[in-house]
């Protein structure tokens, strides 16, 4: 392409040429006039010697159209150039085209076509932007972490879930190697396999992130076309399955626990019944003792099954709808529980101290709350030394709810058990608690009763210092605070 001289210089050259033409024409006329002596004379009239005049006039007339044509062409070229300049300007700035004031007849249709093309492109761009925004929204809404890597395995971008999973500042990651931000041999192997174009296959492994172990399911696939350094790369999908795996292990633990807990009394019953069948009923004293053991084990079996059914009902999705809360007085609930458990307490010489039981209005399912309180109080009675005192109290909470406290003078519970205390069949001391006739489900039921009321249970206990269990319920189910883990020493909220 030959570079054309700048328009101003070209215009100057054209103007100079036109001027020269005119000067030449005028010079011809002047010479002719001078030759004729300035005026016509009788012997040499001007007309006779009009050669110079004619030449001058011819030059003037002849060059006039050329000058006119040159000027028109120049103006056209000028408009063309201004149009090109504004097109370049628009291309560089992503702004819409600003056409010069006049484009002339011949460029008018071109400009119109360009405008139509531009409108079409801008529409397309707007649609693409909407799509992009939509897809960005989708990726953000994805619960799994998604990381896009370039060919060198440098992070191109990631969604919020990925940043949260990897405990990263989202803006700090792009441009860094994935190996720099996550140190995990299985993950690096997965990336290595994906770069070879292997079929993506989900893998599960533990990632150690900021000092905690996270189980992730990771899939890595190669994306984009070959060639072009900024296209293509890897797409890494990370799903946090820690909770899922924990739930699965809880479930299988639960199944194992249930069968174990049910099998123990059944084995006992079978054993004693078989012995009775073998030795006969001649020894009445022994027979009575054996049957008593059989009855106790059958009671235990019945208690476990009943507790399991209660739990199943409390856990069901419709437990909240069936709650049917009614307004009642917290002190009356405590009285009802005390009435039923007084014989058990008296048998062990334990005083149930109710001095701090205040009257608090509350809207709950009375039967369920009574059951929860009964579980807490009977635990306190079971684990307290003979002749000690179990203190019961009620008070209202800052947000209008009610707090029931059951405090015993028992051996206390070491802090490491607090968190798991409310799990089904969890026992601090396996041998001892079964001796005392617990099903291992009592506190779990309390936790679930609190949960259906949107309340919570807390425990504060230390070895040698007794235990205090607190059942905290909102003024009305549905008003409860979010269940929060509180970091207070010796206190666990569930």
């Amino acid at each position, binding site marked *: 392409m030959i570079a054309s001289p700048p328009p101003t210089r070209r215009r100057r050259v054209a103007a100079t040429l036109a001027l020269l033409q005119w000067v030449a024409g005028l010079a011809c006329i002047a010479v002719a006039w001078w030759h004729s002596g300035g005026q016509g004379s009788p012997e040499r009239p001007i007309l006779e010697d009009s050669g110079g005049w004619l030449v001058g006039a011819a030059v003037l007339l002849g060059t006039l159209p050329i000058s006119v044509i040159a000027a028109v062409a120049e103006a056209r070229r000028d408009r063309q150039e201004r149009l090109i300049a504004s097109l370049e300007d628009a291309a560089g700035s992503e702004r819409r085209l600003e056409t010069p004031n006049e484009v002339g007849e011949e460029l008018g249709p071109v400009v119109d076509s360009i405008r139509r093309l531009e409108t079409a492109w801008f529409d397309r761009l707007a649609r693409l932007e909407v799509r992009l925004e939509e897809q960005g929204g989708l990726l953000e809404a994805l619960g799994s972490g998604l990381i896009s890597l370039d060919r*060198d*395995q*440098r992070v191109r971008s990631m969604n919020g879930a990925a940043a949260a999973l990897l405990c990263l500042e989202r803006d700090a990651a792009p441009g860094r*190697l994935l*190996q*720099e*931000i996550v*140190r*995990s*041999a299985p*993950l*690096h192997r997965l990336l*290595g396999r994906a770069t070879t174009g292997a079929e993506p296959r989900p893998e599960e492994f533990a990632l150690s992130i900021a000092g905690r172990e996270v189980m992730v399911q990771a899939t890595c696939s190669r994306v984009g076309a070959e060639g072009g350094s900024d296209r293509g790369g890897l797409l890494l999908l990370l799903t946090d399955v820690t909770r899922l795996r924990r739930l699965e292990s809880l479930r299988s633990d639960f199944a194992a626990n249930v069968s174990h807990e049910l099998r123990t009394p059944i084995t006992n019953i079978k054993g004693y019944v078989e012995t009775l069948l073998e030795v006969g009923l001649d020894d009445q004293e022994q027979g009575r003792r054996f049957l008593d053991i059989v009855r106790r084990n059958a009671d235990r079996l019945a208690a476990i099954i009943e507790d399991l059914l209660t739990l199943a009902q409390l856990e069901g999705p419709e437990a909240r709808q069936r709650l049917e809360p009614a307004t009642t007085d917290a002190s009356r609930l405590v009285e009802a529980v005390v009435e039923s458990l007084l014989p058990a307490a008296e048998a062990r010489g334990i005083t149930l101290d109710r001095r701090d039981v205040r009257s608090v209005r509350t809207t709950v399912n009375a039967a369920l709350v009574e059951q929860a309180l009964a579980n807490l109080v009977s635990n306190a009675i079971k684990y307290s030394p003979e002749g000690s005192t179990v203190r019961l109290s009620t008070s209202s909470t800052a947000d209008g709810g009610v707090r029931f406290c059951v405090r015993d003078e028992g051996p206390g519970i070491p802090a490491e058990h607090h968190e798991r205390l409310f799990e089904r069949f969890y026992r601090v001391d396996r041998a001892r608690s079964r001796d005392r006739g617990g099903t291992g489900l009592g506190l779990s039921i309390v936790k679930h009763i609190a949960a259906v009321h949107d309340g919570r249970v807390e425990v504060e206990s230390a070895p040698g210092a007794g235990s205090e269990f607190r059942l905290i319920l909102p003024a009305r189910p549905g008003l409860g605070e979010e269940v929060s883990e509180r970091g207070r020493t010796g206190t666990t909220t569930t």
Partner: protein
Amino acid sequence: MPVDLHAELLQVRRELLAMGALVEERVAEVIAAMAKLDVAAAARIRDGDSDIDRMEVQIEQECIRLLALAQPVAGDLRAILTVLRVNGEIERIADLAKGIAKRVIRLGTEQLIEIPPLVVEMGGHARRMLSEVLSALADQDPARCRDLTPLEEQVDALQKAVVRWVRDEVTRHPDLASAVIDVLTIAQRLERLADIVTNIAEDVVFLVEGRLVRHGGI
């Protein structure tokens, strides 16, 4: 064929970090196996050393090729030199882990003594040091290496305590001498591991600041 120095440097760096992660995992496993005298886990570590050796050789070859073909200078040269050095150090850590695994297998099979808590604590410190230095390498942040000094001092102090324990134990139970010496060897390997970690920390300082800090404070 022209060498794309930048892309290839990225590649060796990636491989080095991946190897670091793998060795860190091995060290964590061997220390867990040691605390429980888990023979099966230790045997897995003893037998799984070949992939690390292969990675080491590959990284070294690539570095030498880059040095020869691309003739890097300044920062790039430092980067390659660091990769070369750290590569060797990490491989030695893997060897130490393998050595510990062998002793753990023997101790676990004999079941004569348990690993004393002193050595388990040493293991925990060594593991943390390795993890810190690999983070420093990944982030190219020498400031992270400064936390290593107190840990290394603790490892040294624990090593001395282990030596005292060994001396007492051998006089008290001469019949257990061989097992006690195995424990001592494990402690020595852990101490060596901590030493190598500080070498890597020095390499990180060299990489970022261009200063050689061998045999001195970081």
